[in-house]
């Protein structure tokens, strides 16, 4: 594919003119600059993340001490926690909104939105995204969807509470639970806005990566971050529309009386007038997005950690082509495995066999990635920046969580642990922790690029260790709860004496969760403090090769003051024999007689 540069001799003058006209609103709010939009995504995602994590601390408190009174619950939940005891409806609402916020608002928009926007133009050598306007729209749809989601927390009948997957009929019928009233309608509106924003962003990322690479930046010279963001965007474009249709059909069932997902329902003493629909259809549509969504969350984190691990090991990423190949393989397979969420819905057993086969195949490219990370560390010269710490944490959680996937992907084994805490442990470790560690790694690594200042490293270390230890402390014991048969989404385990001896583990988990949650304050403080008072960043603080570090520390529209740099090599010429320094930026021409790996 040809690469072209978007040079314009008058571009620079044009930029300067605009630079002086900017006021607060054009600079920070209605900006079309990809760097600022990335920061908008990040800060909005962090805000939503705080809500999501606080919710988990509240319901963890309830799970550890069911039916006990905590004034703090009444303070936050009001009428939903009379006398400080959380109601079952509120418990379900909290787990639902926690899941929705973490999966979509934090780990999809907050992670992919932030770093795709920030890094795609900077790392491929482009002045900005293909369409700055679409990019701004993408953020504003996301912002609106966040507002609607937060508003839904305050409606009279409570927020959506049918689980983050909102399976009908539970989510379709307001009679089924209070959360399926106005809260559910707002949830669907919020998700619709979210999907529109996500699609606009993804299209933009794809077009930008394909068309706007600088001279010399062939696809095989792209940093792995860009590969990950690119494939993520493709996944999003192919799968989010299916969720959109699922959500629209659900809205029709709720508001217009159609029967896409509903049939033969007796509720509140009468038969409802729905006939001929199937709730399982919704699950097929939902998981056709839902499973690629897991990789929409995970791939950007893997891309970020590839970059961070190579840079800080001072080594080329091991097996670049295998890494790209495994991203592509995972992406392809992610479209044909959705049925493993539905082994026990009563679907044709033959389908179960097919989905078991395709699901377990994903373990192969995943194993390749894990081993390549470890080999990248081998004989490296590891620089322990906080970003590097989180990346190593990611490799650990990716392995731990990935391994239990071998069990859950096997239909015969899934029968007994489906919807138990074993699943909760699995997906929180492999997807939640890995992605959030990748996101933290990205923030620590590119903070100097975003704000021109450095974050405090000691607070970074403290943040990492507290997060790493408490995260495993929360989620690893859950495997044992699952193996004891404890179902997820239970308000309390007290109704079954067989679970009475699990109470201690629940208390332990809650302690870890609360300490881990509070530890995030270190990060938030470090983040905002460093924006204003952190030490000024040098141009290339981590001695990295990729193009973003050739831009000036002060942001300007168009990214490079002069010509866009030309690329002569891949992004991973670290510690190359014969070179004086242990890094050679991509825009450095090949020395005489030097062989280019890529």
């Amino acid at each position, binding site marked *: 594919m040809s690469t072209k540069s978007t040079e314009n001799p008058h571009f620079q003058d044009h930029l300067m003119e605009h630079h002086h006209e900017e006021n607060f609103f054009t600079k920070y709010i209605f900006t079309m600059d990809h760097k600022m939009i990335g920061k908008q995504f990040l800060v909005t995602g962090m805000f939503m993340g705080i809500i999501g994590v606080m919710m988990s601390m509240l319901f963890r408190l309830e799970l550890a001490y069911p039916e006990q009174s905590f004034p703090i619950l009444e303070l936050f939940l009001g009428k939903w926690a009379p006398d400080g005891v959380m109601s079952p409806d509120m418990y*379900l609402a909290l787990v639902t909104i926690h899941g929705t916020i973490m999966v979509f608002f934090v780990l999809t928009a907050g992670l992919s939105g932030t770093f795709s926007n920030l890094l795609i133009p900077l790392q491929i050598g482009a002045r900005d995204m293909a369409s700055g306007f679409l990019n701004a729209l993408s953020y504003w749809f996301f912002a609106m969807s966040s507002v609607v989601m937060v508003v839904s927390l305050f409606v009279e009948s409570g927020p959506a509470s049918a689980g983050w997957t909102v*399976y009908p009929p539970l989510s379709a019928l307001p009679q089924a639970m209070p959360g399926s009233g106005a809260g559910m309608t707002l949830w669907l509106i919020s998700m619709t806005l979210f999907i529109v924003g996500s699609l606009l962003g993804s299209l933009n990322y794809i077009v930008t990566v394909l068309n706007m690479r600088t001279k010399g930046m062939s696809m095989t010279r792209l940093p792995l971050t860009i590969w990950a963001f690119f494939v993520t965007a493709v996944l999003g474009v192919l799968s989010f529309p299916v969720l959109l249709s699922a959500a629209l059909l659900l809205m029709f069932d709720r508001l217009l009386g159609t029967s896409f997902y509903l049939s*033969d329902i007796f509720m509140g003493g009468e038969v409802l007038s729905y006939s001929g629909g199937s709730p399982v259809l919704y699950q097929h549509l939902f998981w056709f997005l839902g499973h690629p969504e897991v990789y929409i969350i995970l791939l950007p984190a893997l891309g970020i950690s590839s970059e961070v691990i190579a840079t800080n090991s001072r080594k080329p990423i091991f097996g670049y082509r295998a890494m790209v190949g495994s991203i592509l393989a995972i992406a392809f397979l992610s479209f044909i495995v959705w049925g493993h969420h539905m082994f026990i819905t009563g679907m044709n057993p033959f389908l*179960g066999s097919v989905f078991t086969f395709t699901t377990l195949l994903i373990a192969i490219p995943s194993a390749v990635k894990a081993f390549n990370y470890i080999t990248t560390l081998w004989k490296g010269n590891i620089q322990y920046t906080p970003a590097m710490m989180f990346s190593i944490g990611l490799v650990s959680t990716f392995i731990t969580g990935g391994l239990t996937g071998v069990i859950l992907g096997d239909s015969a084994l899934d029968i007994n642990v489906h919807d138990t805490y074993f699943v909760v442990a699995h997906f929180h470790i492999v997807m939640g922790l890995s992605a959030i560690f990748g996101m933290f790694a990205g923030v620590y690594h590119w903070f100097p690029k975003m704000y021109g200042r450095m974050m405090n490293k000691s607070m970074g270390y403290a943040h990492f260790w507290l997060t790493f230890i408490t995260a495993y402390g929360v989620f690893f014991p859950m495997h044992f709860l699952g193996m004891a048969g404890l179902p997820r989404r239970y308000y309390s385990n007290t109704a079954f004496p067989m679970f009475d001896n699990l109470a201690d583990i629940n208390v332990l988990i809650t302690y870890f969760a609360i300490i881990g949650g509070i530890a995030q304050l270190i990060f938030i403080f470090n983040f905002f403090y460093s924006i204003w008072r952190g030490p000024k960043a040098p141009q290339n603080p981590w001695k990295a090769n990729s193009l973003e570090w050739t831009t000036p520390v002060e942001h300007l529209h168009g990214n490079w003051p002069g010509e866009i740099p030309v690329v002569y090599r891949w992004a991973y010429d670290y510690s190359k024999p014969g070179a004086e320094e242990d890094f050679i930026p991509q825009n450095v021409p090949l020395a005489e007689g030097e062989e280019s790996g890529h």
Partner: protein
Amino acid sequence: MNTVSIIVLVVLAILTLVQVMRISEVSSEIQGGKDNEVSEKDNDTQGRLMFLVGMGFVISVVVMYIVWGRLSLPEPSSAHGSEIDGLWNLSMLIINIVFFIVQPILFYFAYKYRGKKGTKAVHFAHNNKLELFWTVVPALALAVLIIWGLNVWSTLMMPENEEEPIVIELYAQQFNWTARYSGSDNALGFASVYDIEGANIVGVDTQDAASADDIVTKELHLPVGKPVLFQFRSQDVIHSAYFPHFRAQMNCVPGATTNFQFTPTITTAEIRQNKDVKRHVEEVNTIRTAQGEDIWEFNYVLLCNKICGAAHYNMQMDIIVETEDEYNAWLNEQKTVAETL
């Protein structure tokens, strides 16, 4: 008042932190602003910590297996359960081998190759043999698991019956279970939500001849050693019939009938004598006595395992597995649909 004091405390805490940061900032400026860069000392400390905490994690996993391993479900009480458990054990063995090899290597490398001044990393960009090796080995291990897994799955889902299974309907509604036995003809009468009325809670069509000998109960009794074909229905939202002790689970979907077949192999009386179950009961009863609650006697239980509303966490039914004679005696005491409706 409480709220105000909390806000004041938080604001004060933030202000204190900012002041502390200012002081460290000033002292760092005095030292030439270098103390925020990653130093050799940082690499050394953090590399060592990686090893310590990483190995600590791996060891704590061993401890968890020792301390909490006993919490796992007791031996399966169904014929197919031992096949699932066999596959489970092999899968667990494989993933544990990988875990206990790869995690220590990761943290060891993180420690061993911590940055030191004067050393240079080795430029090692790819090695096809190595990569082929760790593509093929997982592929082989997975091939074993896939083939075995699919085998078990098809025997579960398409059982070959030597004798005709007893047909029992499990009917789910917010938030309880009802069982309907097919009676002497071993055929369930037609039922639908449109026939629900008064005492006819599961909507049996009384005009259907097959329904006359159906028996609707709130208890689930099963004969040991006989295959039972469960048919699941739901009247409102999706529920999931979860029989953890029998390694069985199936969703109950409104508007459709799903099914699952298994053969109970251990009676309730026998499983109460199982040493793992005895220990479990003892442990639970120690806790319950301390909290002043009733003593618990072990029973098989059916749980709802798909979020279904506020009382989802308490949607249950006891299951009693007994000898065929006891089962028949119990069933004969129950009233048929013809008698009750």
